[in-house]
């Protein structure tokens, strides 16, 4: 999957936890999950679990810690999918 393809799928993962759908549609690699999308921290674990299911990957603690913005989410997902 390309980064753009992962980003498009990631929007679906983030959608249930994002109130501002317009902002979600416009996300880029620098978008911060909490500061920009206002995702409640209580939903961060949901996002990890949903991403694991969607991409059929396992996200360890250290990798999960890195998933604070869209770019780093794509980094982690790519890595776990076995892509550089």
């Amino acid at each position, binding site marked *: 999957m390309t980064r753009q393809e992962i980003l498009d799928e990631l929007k679906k993962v983030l959608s249930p936890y994002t109130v501002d759908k317009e902002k979600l549609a416009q996300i880029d690699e620098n978008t911060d999950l909490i500061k920009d999308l206002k995702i409640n921290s*209580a939903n961060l674990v949901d996002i*990890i679990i949903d991403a694991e299911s969607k991409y059929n990957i396992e996200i360890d*603690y250290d990798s999960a810690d890195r998933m*604070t913005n869209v770019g780093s989410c794509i980094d982690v997902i790519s890595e776990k999918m076995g892509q550089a």
Partner: protein
Amino acid sequence: MISIGNDIVSLHHINKQRTCQRRFNSKFITDSELKLYSRPDAAQMPFEVFVWLLWSAKESVYKFIKRHQPQLVFSPIKFTCREIDLSGFSPAASYQLCDHNGFNHVPAIAMKVAFQNEQISVRSVISPDYIVSFAALKESFSQMHWAVERINAADPESQSDAVRALTLKKLKQLNVSVDAFIGKSPAGYPFVKDPDVLLSFAHHGQYVSYAIMTGHS
């Protein structure tokens, strides 16, 4: 380390079934913390409440520490809950939401949360609707002002406006000089002009909460 932390979890906004799955809760609760649930004093507490109690305690301590380590990312598995005293938990307890000072008058749960070399004390209060946790130095709890409010709209802007309005009202009552507009530091915590006043906000669903300490003990 002088600081303050506050977190709230709305029990109407959690997925009970998902919470109880080990696949979910293992992301932030260790096996040894899980063992604490099998103690007799935990019997009255539903498992999902126990799980989110630990989450909110860790999050409140994260906010406490972040004031001094602004770059800190929340990694819940690195925070360890211990010495949890559930004797204060009362499932049927009800009490007013607002204008609390200290924790002696409510059924509060006490615990310590360890992170790096620190052990931070936490007090948590549980109602059928929410779990709210406060992190501070042990001797500061008796002076902490706190409140929970239920709001109508649950969007981020309404939550933010509501908690600021609630806090400003209290600060005025406490005679804290408030041409204070409540700002947000780059590290994400709220502050007013008076450096002796410490604030922490939290919101989730239709619940917002604040913790205030004026003057350092």
